């Protein structure tokens, strides 16, 4: 069920009403039931895999809570992790790897045996809830969290419907305590939740879905589209994926808030980042970045195991992140590995040049602290990320290279082409929407829009609300286009 579907938008108020009418102590049960209903609505088999993962982590967590011997604890942890992450890996990569292996053998031997395929439909959201489940086990193992005795509440942590399809990858350490303190429906939280839902819908159906056709067409005919169309498509994609994913997250956080649960912030105006390290570490898909930081980067030694190890750890994190992203929207292919490695290289470059920036700041403090310098850094970071997005969006490395080569080949002529190009109304609308988004993000960066709204007179506040609602009605594309990140 999509957040933008008619059925969801009509069922949500009913679910909330029932939630509010139930006694606080049983609300978790209603949320669990609603979550499984929501998740199984499109493909009932998905609920089976969700149940399997939940039972696995509950059993392993219970064992971890009781086991005293280190060997037993490690064995239980490994059992849980291998089962959960192995399931994810098998679903994601087995068929792809079998195909690639067949091709490789065919190149070497001239013929290849046909390997069996799983042929299973990917359980939507598995990438997200498998990581949530894994983080629970790792936290229990590390003693950051006692093993959850309440199977129902652990099941709700894994399955909670606002976050199951595309995150945030919430931690049990922050989620489970909220179930004990009560899932209260309060007017302030309702308003805050509705604000987020409205803004998330605006980003998704007004911005992302209006940009989608302007991206899809040139990418589909990369060899024939004009270089300027390709340039526009690449820029538009950067905002499409941001608005699509962060729009989903805003709706998820908003919906969770209606039911009395706070989910973690997942995006913080990423295109205003001044370095790729800041982009990945503090602004884009924060819950995943923190997951990798806490469960991969730190255990590998992080930055404390010597400079070379740090470089290796950074590349390991981004390569695994690339693999994790495979299957989210644009199929499973080598492009995601390249995308991850490219981002790893950016972070290497950032790390290597960090002394240079410090030196610059020390010697030329006026330049280093000037707004122009800040804008230049933002633009540089944005364009580095933009280059990497081409590999994320392309269906193959060949297509990504073709797009970049065609753009590079026409780089000198682009300004002249841009002046003569017959822009369509859709493109003009897209640019206008991006401008509105960026203006609001800049304002939000200086002082949160939520605070500004709260401080504004009621007529301004309501004008903003009606403006968003009118945009949703007039400009929104409601034809049930899936969220990019919720396809695995």
């Amino acid at each position: 069920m999509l957040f933008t579907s008619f059925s969801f938008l009509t069922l949500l108020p009913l679910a909330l009403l029932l939630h509010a009418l139930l006694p606080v102590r049983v609300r978790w049960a209603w949320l669990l039931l609603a979550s499984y209903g929501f998740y199984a609505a499109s493909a009932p088999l998905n609920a089976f895999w969700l149940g399997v993962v939940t039972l696995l982590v509950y059993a392993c967590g219970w064992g971890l809570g009781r086991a005293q011997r280190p060997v037993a604890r490690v064995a239980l942890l490994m059992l849980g992790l291998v089962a959960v992450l192995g399931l994810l890996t098998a679903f994601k990569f087995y068929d792809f790897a079998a195909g690639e292996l067949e091709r490789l053998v065919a190149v070497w031997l001239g013929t290849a045996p046909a390997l069996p395929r799983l042929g299973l439909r990917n359980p939507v959201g598995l990438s997200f809830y498998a990581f949530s489940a894994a983080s629970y086990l790792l936290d229990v193992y590390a003693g950051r969290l006692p093993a959850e005795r309440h199977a129902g509440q652990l099941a709700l942590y894994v399955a909670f419907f606002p976050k199951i399809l595309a995150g945030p990858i919430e931690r049990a350490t922050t989620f489970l305590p909220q179930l004990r303190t009560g899932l209260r429906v309060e007017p302030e939280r309702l308003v805050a939740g509705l604000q987020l839902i409205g803004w998330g819908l605006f980003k998704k159906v007004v911005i992302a879905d209006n940009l989608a056709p302007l991206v899809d067409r040139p990418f589909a005919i990369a060899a024939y589209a004009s270089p300027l169309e390709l340039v526009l498509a690449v820029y538009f994609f950067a905002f499409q994926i941001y608005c699509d994913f962060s729009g989903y997250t805003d709706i998820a956080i908003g919906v969770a808030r209606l039911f009395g649960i706070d989910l973690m912030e997942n995006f913080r105006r990423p295109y205003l980042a001044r370095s790729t390290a800041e982009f990945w570490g503090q602004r884009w898909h924060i819950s995943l970045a923190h997951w990798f930081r806490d469960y991969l980067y730190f255990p590998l030694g992080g930055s404390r195991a010597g400079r070379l190890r740090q470089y290796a750890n950074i590349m390991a994190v981004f390569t695994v992140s690339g693999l994790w992203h495979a299957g989210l929207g644009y199929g499973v292919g080598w492009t995601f590995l390249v995308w991850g490695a490219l981002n790893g290289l950016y972070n290497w470059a950032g790390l290597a040049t960090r002394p240079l920036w410090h030196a610059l700041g020390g010697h030329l403090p006026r330049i280093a602290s000037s707004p122009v310098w800040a804008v230049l850094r933002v633009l540089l970071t944005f364009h580095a990320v933009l280059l990497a997005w081409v590999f994320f969006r392309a269906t193959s490395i060949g297509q990504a290279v073709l797009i970049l080569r065609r753009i590079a080949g026409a780089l000198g002529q682009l300004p002249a082409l841009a002046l003569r190009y017959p822009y369509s109304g859709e493109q003009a609308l897209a640019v206008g929407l991006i401008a509105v988004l960026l203006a609001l993000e800049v304002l939000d960066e200086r002082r949160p829009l939520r605070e500004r709204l709260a401080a504004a007179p009621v007529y301004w506040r309501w004008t903003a609300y009606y403006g968003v609602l009118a945009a949703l009605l007039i400009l929104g594309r409601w034809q049930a286009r899936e969220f990019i990140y919720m396809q695995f």
Partner: protein
Amino acid sequence: MSSPVKSALRFVAIGVLLYAALYAGAEWLLYRTGDTNPFYKIATTPERRFDWVILGASHAMPFDFANFNAIMERETGLRILDLATPGNGVLYNRFVLERFLEDHRTANVLYVVDSFAFRSRAWNEDRFADAKLLRRTPLDPSVARRLLAYSVREGVSPLAALDYLSGFSKINNRERFQRDVWEGEAQFERAYRPSASAVKNRIAYLYPDGAADEATFARYLTMFADFVAYTQGRGLRLVVIKTPVPAAYRALLPGEDAFDRIVSSLLRERGVAYLDFSALPYEPRLFFDTDHLNRAGLTDFFTQQLKPILTRHEPGSANKP
């Protein structure tokens, strides 16, 4: 009443008023840009009586492209109203005719039949919820009432009625400032260059389930029989035709011979004329795409075949004073 509740009610009340204003604006725009939609035509035609109403899917639409309807009227001296819409099967056509007959009269109905429309609910029940149709259908209590009845009786999605009544598709219309014309009309003057892949794609689009299962076909055949009974019950003369299509296109239509046999038998039993022109040797240059007649093709078809049908006098017509 507590202050937050009062505030929420006030917010909703203002929102409803603003929504109504948007709805009114969308409805006003609809009348400024309307053209092809059958309900728009019914709502705006100054005439109350017609000699012929043309129904069907896209193959019946070129009769109203550019000035062709005016040419047909001039050549025959008859009043003709084309209410065909793209991709619509018998269920939607009956819906249109029922509404038309509420406050208009016609003596004859020309139904341009297509086998694809008997093969899938996509061309029947599902068409009612198509935003492209809903966003161009003027607000009309009679249409709304009928749409609700079709939801209950014919398995049309209730969302279609909800969308229509709420005006959502009109407010959300992305082509709100563009004239409501089917894309085929812009190509009416051009000649088609045969393409095997285009024909294949077109057939795949029209027959998503191939020749479909017997139950689906039987369901729409029964609806068609009901439609025939309805027109006869209203004293209308019904003529069912198939327009010419290129031989390469016709050869790929799944189950076409069986369809012809069954439909012609059904119509013969009810005394309805069935004239199948689809096998006439029309060259591809007489079409603007894989299967729609262009102006040259339609002029020839009208002069040679259709004009005698339209002008043939039949006694007992409902349009007689």
